[in-house]
């Protein structure tokens, strides 16, 4: 009995030790040291700018928010000749792991470091203090403050107001819908703007609204099937235009729009122009464009010219950071009306609510 138990203990311990041992002897003849040591802070005398970018969950290739940041980085790589290193977040990680990711980039000689998404808020605030010589930027967050932190903020509600107005102008049934990916404050801004825009056109318009998942389940940003079901329900209940702010789930909303022979509104990028959504370009009447790529590129450009400003940089309608698209010509007939609203928001005549 006792012997069994002891040998079992030994075995269990051995299994762990062996894996490490196997790993250790595997590389004994390798001379190059791989991976920057997290404790080393010696930045190489860089003749070239090395950009470190940390993605939120989903990473490059999510067809939405992270991809927009990637596009800005790619543009900087080809136009500003910067070097890049991209790291991605994993599902269910802790803040400590996010901090470690940023620290790894900062200590590995990457400067500036860009964090994509408000999830990095606390981590950026903490790590930026440890590396005062490194410039940090964070997208979608203004809570992290510091002399070396630039907050890239967007007025999503303003862009959403315009597509809300477009939806109300285009709707024949006086019934429109909003599909949000995950029920988080950031997406509430899209909803609030959309609602305000629709009501500005038609005060008694019926607005259906649905979020696909509740946090901490962030699956709603990457589940087209859920998006399709939600949108189908809205079309069945009488809506004829649905706006989606649901990341990867948006494809499902477009599918439902096509099946119902109705209209849909895209988000983040000019989705009617994206090859990935070519099948749906007939139903996408417009998209609320959030120019994360422009913000990332601007930040990098400022860095190369030594003109980075810390604190919030707000990308609103006035700065051209958010906008609506006209690809496909589906809203050409109402364009002048939407532009009127746009001008009023820029002038400050209309203040769009954020929640």
């Amino acid at each position, binding site marked *: 009995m006792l012997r069994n138990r002891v040998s079992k203990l030994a*075995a269990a311990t051995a299994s762990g030790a062996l894996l490490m041992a196997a790993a250790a002897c595997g590389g004994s003849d390798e001379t190059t040291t791989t991976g920057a040591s997290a404790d080393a802070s010696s930045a190489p005398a860089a003749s070239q700018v090395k950009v470190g970018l940390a993605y939120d969950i989903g990473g490059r290739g999510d067809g939405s928010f992270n991809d927009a940041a990637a596009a800005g980085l790619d543009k900087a790589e080809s136009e500003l000749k910067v070097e890049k290193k991209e790291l991605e977040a994993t599902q269910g990680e802790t803040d400590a792991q996010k901090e470690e990711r940023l620290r790894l980039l900062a200590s590995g000689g990457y400067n500036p470091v860009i964090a994509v998404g408000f999830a990095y808020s606390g981590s950026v605030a903490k790590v930026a203090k440890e590396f005062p010589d490194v410039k940090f930027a964070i997208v979608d967050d203004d809570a992290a403050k510091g002399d070396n932190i630039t907050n890239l903020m967007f007025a999503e509600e303003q862009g959403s107001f315009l597509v809300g107005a477009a939806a109300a102008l285009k709707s024949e049934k006086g019934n429109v819908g909003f599909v949000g990916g995950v*029920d988080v404050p950031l997406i509430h801004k899209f909803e609030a703007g959309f609602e305000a825009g629709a009501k500005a056109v038609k005060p008694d318009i019926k607005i259906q609204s649905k979020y696909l998942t509740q946090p901490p389940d962030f699956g709603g940003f990457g589940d087209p099937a859920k998006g399709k079901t939600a949108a189908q329900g809205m079309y069945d209940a009488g809506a004829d235009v649905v706006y989606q702010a649901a990341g990867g789930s948006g494809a499902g909303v477009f599918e439902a729009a096509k099946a119902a022979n109705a209209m849909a509104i895209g988000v983040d990028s000019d989705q009617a122009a994206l090859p990935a959504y070519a099948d749906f370009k007939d139903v996408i009447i417009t998209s609320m464009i959030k120019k994360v790529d422009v913000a990332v590129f601007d930040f990098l450009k400022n860095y190369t010219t030594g003109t980075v400003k810390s604190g919030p940089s707000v990308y609103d309608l006035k700065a051209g950071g958010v906008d609506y698209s006209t690809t496909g010509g589906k809203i050409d007939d109402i364009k002048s009306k939407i532009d009127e609203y746009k001008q009023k928001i820029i002038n400050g005549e209309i203040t769009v609510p954020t929640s």
Partner: protein
Amino acid sequence: MNGFVDRLLGRVRLGGWLAVAAPVIAVAFAVLITSVVLLIAGSDPVGAFTTLAEYGTQPRSMAMILNTGVMYYISALAVAVGFRMNLFNIGVDGQYRLAAVVAAGLGGAAVVPGVLNIVLVIVVAVVVGALWAAIAGLLRVYRGVSEVISTIMLNAIATGLGSWLVSEHFGVLTGNDLGTRPIPDDAHMPGIPLIAGTPVLVNGFIVVAVLLGIAYWVVLNRTRFGFELRATGKSESAAVASGVSVKKMIVVTMVMSGAVAGLIGMPELLGASYKYSNNFPAGLGFTGIAIALLGRNNPVGMAVGALLWSFLDNSSNQLQLLDISKEIVQIMQGVVVLSVIIAYELVHRYRIVAEQRRVSRELAAPQEAPKAEAAA
């Protein structure tokens, strides 16, 4: 005699060199498969394993690995309590998240000062976790609902309930993140400078985790309750015959599993984030299931499993620096679990066949006996 599930959950012991053979085969197999996957993906396995070894031996990373491992270990213990009596508590995930929300809400309100607040937060988390798990136990006992189904559903309900609590009651908006009010400074769990050569402190909950591991072993192996629990898990009818109330055991075990689950979020809540927000780690309950399987419900085995899992998770950034996709980590974790299960099963079968051969040889000596059938 012994079913596959018994062997899977480590209720059958291997003796002698066989006990060493199983994990050795498992690890060799896992390394082999991972190398093949790396080669197919166009990466250099030698480089990858070197990076992993270098990463795993730095003091700083060791502290990080311990910190994540503490949560994984508590989660595995919560799952293992149920496993030992054939209760599959898939709801550990919902139990710890709901427990963390309520505990964080109360802790942030700072109704009592200092250390008392830490105690309050922990007690509330344990109670909430236990109550939430009790629902599944009661449904099983009084309505015959499989706990697998009910706990999965309760996970979804816990998500909704937690989200509602945060947005309607406890929530404070900072930037774009919605979370509970931070727990005041005087009620933070202090870290321990356990590893020399790094400023990173090890989460104080490592002590709690070690104590829980010891308690798990003592309760299961040295108490009447533990005996009844294991007996019920091995054979319900035999347990009933020897006077064990199976219904009571089911409820009590679910409650215990849930109570331990309530603690999973505490290292993060009291030692790192100090609030429950949209950013709070999710899915730890499922990690616990994998680690309980990996550690075969043995307290030391699960500790090794938790550290291995945490090591792989934490090395994801390092691998990405080498342009190795972070998904390789998940592949490795999956392969390790599968190879442990397969290796143990193979060794068990080898043992059974060897035993049968021995018996048939002995029987065959005096008279002509039919050839022993290989065990399926």
